[in-house]
């Protein structure tokens, strides 16, 4: 019986030129890299109560600046209790709490120990400004440009949502939906003000 030599056995791999094999491996590697990067991005955990809030900067609307600055750097508020309220002009429930927020801000503002930040979530600047004007809101407010801030707190943000941060920059309370009274806000803020 004659035996076929190994050279005469044609395999698909031996028929593919080296440069094609290299391209295939590079393409596969690239595809896996893209998938891994996407998965990694999706799996970045949202901040939870008890965790330190990462750094972010809010570009503020004209007339709604903080300490004369047109933007607010979160780390500059260390030592103060911070209330971060996400809202939008198209959001009807936001209107329910808008005046409560402003009333609370006016209550805490003189002490200088609490800072309110309003973040206009996915809105048009004109509508956002009109909303602020309509509810006579005076605390710092700015847009969530390119949706960079909201995913830190909630990837599936639904306005209104409010996040309260203590003097050490740690997230201490989350309120999904509108506040219904000034007292509800005070119940969250007052204990944090006692802490040093």
């Amino acid at each position, binding site marked *: 019986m004659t035996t076929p030599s190994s050279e005469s056995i044609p395999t*698909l791999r031996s028929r*593919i030129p080296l440069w094609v094999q290299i391209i295939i491996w590079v393409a596969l590697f690239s595809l896996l890299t893209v998938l891994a990067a996407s998965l990694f991005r999706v799996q970045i955990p949202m901040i939870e109560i008890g965790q330190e809030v990462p750094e972010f900067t809010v570009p503020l609307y004209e007339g709604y600046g903080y300490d004369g600055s047109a933007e607010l750097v979160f780390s500059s508020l260390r030592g103060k209790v911070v209330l971060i309220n996400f809202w939008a002009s198209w959001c009807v429930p936001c209107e329910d709490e808008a005046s409560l927020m402003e009333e609370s801000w006016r209550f805490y503002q003189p002490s200088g120990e609490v800072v309110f930040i309003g973040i206009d979530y996915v809105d048009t600047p*004109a509508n956002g400004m009109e909303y602020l004007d309509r509810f006579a809101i005076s605390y710092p407010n700015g847009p969530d440009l*390119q949706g960079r801030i909201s995913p830190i707190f909630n990837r599936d943000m639904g306005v209104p949502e409010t996040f309260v941060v203590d003097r050490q920059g740690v997230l201490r309370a989350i309120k999904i939906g509108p506040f219904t009274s000034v007292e509800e806000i005070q119940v969250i803020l007052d204990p944090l003000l006692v802490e040093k």
Partner: protein
Amino acid sequence: MKNGRIKFILGAVSILLLLLNLIPRTQVSAQTPVPPSDDEVNAIASELFCPICENIPLDVCPTEACRDWRELIRQMLAEGKSEEEIDLFFVENYGARVLGTPPARGIIWFAYILPPVAFVIGVVLLFKAIRPREETAAKQGAAIQQGPLPPGKADLSAVSDQEYRVRLETELKKRAEDN
């Protein structure tokens, strides 16, 4: 002489009327610019996605917020903004995710380059896989015409896969027994 004068007067009146006709049109077009039509607005809106209700193009999105964004597009068009400028505004405010056709940069670049590369590789592989079979078939035809091969030479082209596998397994078993 009289005809010439009449022609001159008629010509002068015609030119005057023509000029008078032009002046008001210029003034009207400067005072009341034509607002962008719904079609013009939707042509741009269809290339953008609603930033809050994902996967819904802005031109068909029924929410109040989307209506506001369409009005914003109309306003920007009326201000003379180009489609690129409007797209840029939306990207700066709501991120690149609102674009129907994401820009080919960063990781998104792979989404553009991988499909054509995979297609080319597929075509090359297909070509490489088909060509040897054609060559085998040609050899097989030639072998039939030439007659039997000299002793000691295996005519693989004429051997089916099944026969080849059986022969290979038999040979391997024999070698294993010898060892």
